[in-house]
């Protein structure tokens, strides 16, 4: 299986990246000016890659579908970014971050990549501070940290609940500097619709100008896909409305293997859905689990009274509450990893203890933290014997300073005041660990086509830990790609500009034209959203938080059916040569309708439970871990990389065996 050579460097894990950097080819500064690189996406991975590559001297063309690179969905990341700085002197180290990430990913990530991620994490914080990113600080002027799920240290750097925004604006500012110098040509409101391959190498893309509808050919010596994740295959997710799989899927159909599509993160703390009209779900940062305690009532009669509006959650005494995470996982409590917390919420709600009208909500309660912080604050302020009211007031101030924007967001959406009454939350689709298969250099199985950030599969295994997505996006873009891409481009210094008149460009452009024409001329009777919602329902019901062979088999057939109906009956108004958001959506949903099937196929083949992928057939049946997910290392200790062969059902499985030399494989326990 030569195509799946991960190209992991030799040597001890702690030296691999350094040795690799010392050995790989470099391109001299004068030659970099002769080389063009396309970056698709302007989020943390794409933005940081575009800026870094331009600083190094390459000619960068960057594409985003939003009206400005600053709006990529990384902007919405809330809680923080991990780094093994050990500023808190709590025993953190590169190894511990590496270990936590591999364990958190349920031993389905690639050791060498994860170690590198942990290794460069500290540099990210240095780099961002140098750019003027205003991280939270303590009174002494030094950086503050907090904790995230699945770890026992405080290594998360943050900027209130807007860490993603601040980091992205940092990357955007670095991009702005290069755009101003002409080293990055920015294509806002453009969408990549095809990858162009010449002589087996990625040499360009076909993009559509979303304002004029013009179909354009863009050539380059290498193409970086940093187009994010595909959570919107579920229709409802915490992703932005425009987040899509199209760039990655186009590459997949041109030969890039798609790895572990079924690994999806269902985030435990989102605002529950309220009606059928709902267009998206809103995340409440995991950082809230630092201070919020999750519970449902112990007694069914209290659940019923709350649903009927006869009781309020604040009426229930401590004894009447079931803090089920603290009960089941005493060591990690409310800070268990996301997959564990989500399943535990589902378990309680399935058992009938959900606290809202739909039965799909649990409480996230800050009252203990408010009192604790209030007492601390009163002591610091020298207030003796403050009243409960005063303690509450002070405590609410502390909570506001930490999470103010999140509480405001919650209140605006639900019309409930979370300082006074517990938040209601429920799991929702948030992040996709799967993505384009890449080797150690972040190259896909198409030479010259790279994938970075959420678009690749590489670092998070079957479950991503909180505050690790920002770390990975920036690590890929600032510190990994700029090195590894040079190794490949060193062979291209004499190639010269790639002509867009090559037949491969002409053909790719025609494919795009034909595809869009077909959508516009279909003149069916149902809107794009109609199909997207149906797809989303099948995905959530049968390929969601708990999966089984029967449901997955049905899902595969149903998705295929919806796809066929889509092509028969979709209606796309307007024309191709104008600003046409419905046409954009149609193209994206068409790709989701194929990905969804591969997703379910991957979930069906992986007959084990690991991380976010929970198969009801694979559960611990006895012992201390009874009822917990059961991984199967004998049969499934590999990356599943799918090769496109026509229909999603024809996709061929390739396996990359995962080798664990530095971490002992064992059952993940957070008890």
């Amino acid at each position, binding site marked *: 299986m030569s195509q799946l050579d991960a190209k992991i460097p030799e040597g001890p894990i702690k030296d691999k990246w350094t040795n690799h950097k010392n050995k790989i080819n470099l391109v001299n500064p004068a030659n970099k000016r002769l080389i063009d690189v396309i970056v698709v996406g302007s989020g943390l991975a794409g933005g940081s890659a575009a800026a870094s590559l331009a600083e190094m001297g390459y000619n960068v063309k960057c594409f985003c579908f939003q009206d400005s690179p600053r*709006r990529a969905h990384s902007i919405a990341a809330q809680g923080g970014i991990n780094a093994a*700085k050990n500023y808190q002197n709590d025993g953190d180290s590169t190894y511990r971050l590496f270990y936590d990430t591999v364990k958190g990913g349920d031993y389905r990530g690639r050791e060498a990549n994860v170690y590198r991620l942990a290794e460069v994490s500290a540099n990210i914080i240095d780099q961002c501070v140098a750019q003027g990113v205003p991280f939270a600080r303590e009174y002494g002027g030094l950086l503050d940290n907090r904790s995230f799920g699945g770890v026992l240290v405080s290594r998360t750097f943050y900027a209130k609940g807007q860490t993603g925004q601040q980091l992205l604006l940092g990357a955007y500012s670095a991009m702005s500097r290069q755009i101003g110098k002409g080293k990055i040509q920015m294509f806002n409101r453009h969408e990549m619709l095809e990858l162009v391959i010449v002589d087996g190498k990625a040499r360009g893309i076909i993009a559509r100008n979303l304002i004029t509808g013009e179909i354009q050919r863009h050539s380059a010596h290498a193409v970086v896909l940093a187009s994010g994740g595909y959570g919107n295959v579920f229709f409802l997710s915490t992703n932005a409305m425009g987040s899509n799989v199209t760039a990655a899927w186009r590459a997949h159909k041109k030969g890039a293997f798609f790895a572990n599509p079924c690994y999806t993160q269902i985030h435990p703390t989102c605002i529950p859905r309220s009606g059928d009209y709902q267009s998206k779900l809103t995340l409440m940062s995991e950082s809230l689990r630092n201070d919020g305690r999750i519970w449902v009532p112990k007694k069914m009669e209290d659940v019923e009274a709350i649903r009927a509006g006869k009781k309020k959650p604040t009426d229930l005494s401590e004894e009447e509450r079931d803090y089920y995470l603290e009960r089941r996982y005493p060591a990690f409590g409310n800070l268990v990893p996301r997959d564990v917390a989500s399943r535990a919420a589902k378990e309680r709600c399935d058992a009938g203890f959900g606290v809202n009208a739909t039965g799909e909500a649990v409480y996230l309660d800050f009252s203990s933290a408010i009192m604790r912080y209030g007492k601390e604050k009163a002591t610091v302020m020298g207030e003796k014997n403050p009243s409960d009211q005063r303690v509450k007031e002070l405590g609410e101030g502390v909570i506001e300073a930490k999470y103010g*924007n999140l509480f405001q967001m919650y209140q605006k959406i639900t019309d409930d005041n979370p300082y006074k009454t517990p938040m209601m939350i429920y799991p929702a689709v948030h992040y996709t660990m799967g993505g384009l298969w890449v080797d150690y250099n972040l190259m896909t199985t198409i030479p010259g086509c790279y994938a970075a950030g959420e678009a690749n599969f590489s670092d998070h295994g079957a479950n991503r830990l909180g505050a690790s997505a920002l770390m990975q996006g920036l690590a890929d873009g600032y510190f990994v790609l700029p090195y590894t891409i040079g190794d490949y481009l060193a062979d291209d210094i004499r190639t010269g500009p790639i002509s867009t008149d090559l037949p491969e460009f002409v053909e790719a452009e025609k494919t795009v034209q034909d595809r869009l024409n077909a959508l516009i001329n279909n003149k069916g009777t149902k809107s794009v959203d109609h199909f997207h919602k149906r797809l989303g329902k099948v995905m959530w019901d049968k390929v969601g938080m708990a999966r089984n062979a029967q449901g997955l088999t049905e899902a595969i057939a149903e998705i295929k059916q919806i796809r066929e109906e889509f092509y028969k009956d979709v209606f796309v108004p307007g024309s191709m040569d104008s600003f046409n958001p419905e046409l954009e959506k149609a193209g994206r949903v068409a790709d989701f309708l194929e990905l969804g099937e591969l997703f379910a196929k991957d979930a069906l083949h992986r007959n084990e439970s690991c991380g976010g992928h929970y198969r009801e057939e694979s559960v611990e049946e006895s012992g201390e871990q009874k009822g917990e997910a059961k991984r199967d290392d004998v049969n499934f200790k590999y990356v599943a990389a799918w090769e496109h062969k026509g229909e999603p059902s024809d996709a061929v499985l390739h396996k990359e065996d995962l080798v664990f030399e530095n971490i002992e494989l064992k059952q993940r326990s957070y008890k």
Partner: protein
Amino acid sequence: MAGKGMNLTLKIWRQSDANSPGKMVDYKVTDISEHMSFLEMMDVLNEQLVSKGEDPVAFDHDCREGICGMCSMYINGEAHGPDRGVTTCQLHMRMFNDGDTIYIEPWRAAAFPVIKDLVVDRTAFDRIMNAGGFVSVNTSGNTQDANALPIPKADADEAFDAATCIGCGACVATCKNASAMLFVSAKVSQLALLPQGKVEAKERVLNMVDQMDKEGFGNCTVTGACEVECPKGISLTNIARMNQEFLKASITADK
């Protein structure tokens, strides 16, 4: 709440492209839940229009949680509508009453030409940022340790508050002069407050203000409407700080 939904009349600006004249067009939506966001109400309208084979209303939106800065509607004469501290996507229908007539227009400013319907071109903001909205530091990973330079918490917090600007353009849309001073001053302030940004503070403020003027934004007459309508509560103090920085730089800069 299971009560009956609202029936509303919408008067919406329709304009097929930058070169065509636009006009207000009336639409009706029925049974709108108070729990819907404003944009979900727009989704309902567009679904109706598509089902009749008509052209849906184009509007910008993406994250739908108030942080990307993409959504931009001028509702009943207010940028982002009647609520405070929210973007259009965070505005909820509970702010309206059954039978209401709602006026929906795009941002209006010479520097923000209409692309279609409610979608405007805000790339002028990007060009201002390209002129100086950054610290000139390359990606190396070899900058000094992040804690080598302590920053007083008060400065860091104030820089953060300025940095929360989402670049939506509500400040421009609501300003009678279509001034971009709140937007520009937020970035100038963030970087002027931090030691990392101080080094090139003078060039930055001069270059950004210069670009702002070139783009055709108006001047500031300290009405303060921008601060009221800003979804992120960016303070007018930033404009005062920028004026100070600008004056200092004009007198002492090398160029």
